[in-house]
């Protein structure tokens, strides 16, 4: 088992602190249109260092912070933490559990943490690469993007393989 849990607070529609436990095997997520399912997928991409705002359906950094609703004020910060199970040692760190945290403020600043200590984005990307789940675009397939895997022209399809190679 690799992911243990995902914790969100102030990220898009997850204004309240929310914890998603991720057991091994297949975890299903269901719910009505607009309830926040794809926001969970954005949170997973984001906490792992996603730099393209377009990939998380945003135009500016603050778009990920809960923007308020009927009778509820906007928040000032978004935070997502992912907890990885490292008992098998697939991540080259001396911990049996590794957490990665990302925060964003209305100022546009981002902060990153690994096991609670402040790090730079470069450290998160480096950790991912050393653990073998680098920039792989096939670990999160967003809504409506299934066709994108195929519809590229033959030269573009190559990029998918170079990542995997």
């Amino acid at each position: 088992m690799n992911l243990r849990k995902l914790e969100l607070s102030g990220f898009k529609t997850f204004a309240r602190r929310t914890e998603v436990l991720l057991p091994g095997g297949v975890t299903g997520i269901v719910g009505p249109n607009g309830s926040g399912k794809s926001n969970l997928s954005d949170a997973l991409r984001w906490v792992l260092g996603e730099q393209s705002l377009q990939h998380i359906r945003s135009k500016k950094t603050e778009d990920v912070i809960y923007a308020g609703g009927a009778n509820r004020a906007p928040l000032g910060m978004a935070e997502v933490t992912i907890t990885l199970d490292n008992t098998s040692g697939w991540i080259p760190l001396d911990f049996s559990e590794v957490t990665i945290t990302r925060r964003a403020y209305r100022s546009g600043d981002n902060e990153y943490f690994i096991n609670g200590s402040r790090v730079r984005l470069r450290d998160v990307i480096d950790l991912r690469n050393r653990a073998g789940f680098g920039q792989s675009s096939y670990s999160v397939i967003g809504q409506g993007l299934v066709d994108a895997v195929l519809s590229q022209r033959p030269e573009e399809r190559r990029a998918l393989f170079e990542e995997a190679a």
Partner: protein
Amino acid sequence: TKKQFLDTFETVASEFERFFGIIFGGGQVQMFLTDPESINTSGIEILAQPPGKRLQSLSALSGGERALVAGALLFAILSAKPVPFCLLDEVDAALDEANVKRFCQALKSLAQQTQFVVITHNRETMAIADALYGVSMGQDGVSKLVSLRLPREDRSDSAEASAQA
């Protein structure tokens, strides 16, 4: 390097054939380099032959057939180059009931090595999930998460608990 790329390509191509057969329940798929002389820049072409039909390019397929081919390719890459986890957001939206079942069968076969998170509206897909979460939206535009089904090893605890209640 060239050799690595070719090795990955060969492995993915043969896994692609295998998953295409599982997902379509027959037929065949061909994946080849458009320009094998110059491996560094060659594109990748795909021809598919659903059962009973002729071999054709991807653009001639139906919406659901394209989603199935994309699924088979994704599973082939995951099988050739496993990643620790994979999130799929409504990749089953265009599929009919029989195809969803075969798609889920292929997914389940990879769930030993890769942890899956699957967002879906489809009952068949919900049925194969080990754990299931429901996301709902409150009056204030805030998402709430509810556990609908616990994973097997936790289930006996809660089932016991509710039996004693």
